[in-house]
């Protein structure tokens, strides 16, 4: 493959590239949003009950260990899900369970016990302690979990092409089948750029989200 082949592919298929990128993006956005809405509250709730936390975290770990191709295959076999976006979304949300719940749980649990003790002793309600102390102080770790989730979801979403998602993963799978190197490289490159780009942006946000008092050196 020469650079010319590659550029040719890009110019001739701009429409498809745009469509696939858009599909890829919306799938990632949807999956991450749903994951946040579900798993962050679950993670926060689990900090109140160690027994359930252990159980749910084990479950999340187990799910996380299932290879993504197997997961998609299993979901397709279930009548309600079948081929398509429903299965893809469901799988991505399941994968996000581990990094999100674990980091929310760890972030909150890592907050200095003495700070919580003092706050409680001053008469702060548990809701207020959660909002004003546990979440802000746990934020660095929670946000790391969010960052991992976004990057991971971008990658796994590509594999959803095997169950009918028309996204950037399709360039790779079809490129492989047809021995079309420019097509393959285009898919691989754009996915990588999206993942790295998102991670960089989130990294920049992460620096701002750490409470000021924690950033100041002695």
């Amino acid at each position, binding site marked *: 493959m020469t650079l010319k082949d590659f550029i040719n592919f890009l110019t001739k298929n701009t429409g498809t590239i745009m469509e696939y990128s858009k599909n890829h993006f919306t799938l990632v956005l949807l999956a991450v949003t749903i994951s946040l809405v579900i798993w962050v509250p679950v993670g926060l709730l689990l900090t109140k009950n160690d027994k359930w936390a252990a159980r749910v975290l084990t479950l999340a770990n187990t799910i996380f260990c299932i290879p993504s191709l197997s997961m998609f295959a299993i979901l397709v076999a279930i009548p309600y899900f079948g081929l398509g976006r429903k299965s893809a979304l469901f799988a991505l949300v399941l994968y996000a369970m581990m990094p999100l719940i674990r980091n929310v749980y760890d972030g909150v649990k890592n907050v200095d016990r003495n700070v919580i*003790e003092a706050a409680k002793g*001053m008469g702060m309600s548990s809701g207020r302690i959660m909002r004003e102390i546990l979440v802000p*102080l746990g934020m660095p770790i929670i946000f790391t979990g969010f960052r991992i989730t976004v990057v991971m979801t971008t990658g796994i979403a590509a594999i959803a092409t095997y169950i009918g998602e028309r996204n950037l993963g399709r360039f790779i799978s079809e490129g492989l089948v047809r021995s079309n190197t420019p097509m393959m490289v285009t898919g691989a490159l754009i996915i990588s750029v999206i993942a790295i780009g998102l991670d960089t942006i989130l990294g920049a946000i992460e620096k701002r989200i750490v409470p000021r*008092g*924690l950033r100041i050196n002695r």
Partner: protein
Amino acid sequence: MIELMQITKQYSGQTLPAVDKLSLFIPQGEICVLVGPSGCGKSTTLRMINRMIEPTSGMIKINGENIMNTDSDQLRMGIGYVIQQIGLLPHRTIAENIAIVPRLYKWPKDRIKKRVEELIVMMGLDLEKTWGKYPSQLSGGQMQRVGVARAMAVDPPIMLMDEPFGAVDPIARTHLQDEFLRLQREIKKTIVFVTHDINEAIKMGDKIAIFDAGRLVQFGTPEEILTNPINNFVEKFIGHDRVVKKLNLFRAEEVMQPVGRDMRKNEFKVFVQTTTSLPDALSLLLEYDVDYLGILKGEELCGILSFKDIRKHVYRKEGE
């Protein structure tokens, strides 16, 4: 005033109760020190007063009102609470930390600001330099002052202090103790103070409650306890130097022989002020190998203190 009536705390899975049928009366405006070896139940007792721990049985009353009748958050808002590790919120400035309880009471902003400034100054901290800083920028002693200021923010009549000066170095600790005692003479709070250090207990307490294995062993003024330890445990706990410790309770002016105008300053080699503690005076007697010290009030000679005076005082107090 705080009344503890037959308080027991039994943790499940433990054979002995952490606190066993404890009754204690803490009058208004006094510092009551709970002291004892670690695991004796003193902190548990303190934490039951603001319901951080709920007793298994028994009743605690504050100003005659059973504390179980008040919502636990409301109760805690009205009681100052200082812990050894301080627990300042690291993501909030010093001013915001002190303002926590006033904010819970929904004070107007300008009232909070005024009170915060007042407290920072009262604690001997530099207002301009301190209020906008974060806890990690302060020294241990400064943080502890902020902890005390935060507990006093809404001027609660009762304060619970769990080894409040335990984490700072000895010099800063002495300083904090002295300042706190001076402050207490003005604010006259009812204070329950936990420590494992008998010297701190003797210094800080109007009353001392000595704990062992969940039980109250002896309760009384420092002088009573040092003079008449009730059993071997107390005697061992306060140490074999209890007579010397007792000297700490007195100042030179309480023991000296007053002198008239006929005595001159030049008849003395060594002088101390009336407020000097007896151990310091004794130390000077030994250091300069003199028989007596001149006692000064400001610049004026007002008394004479000899080794015999100290000995007589100790014997009288020992009741012999």
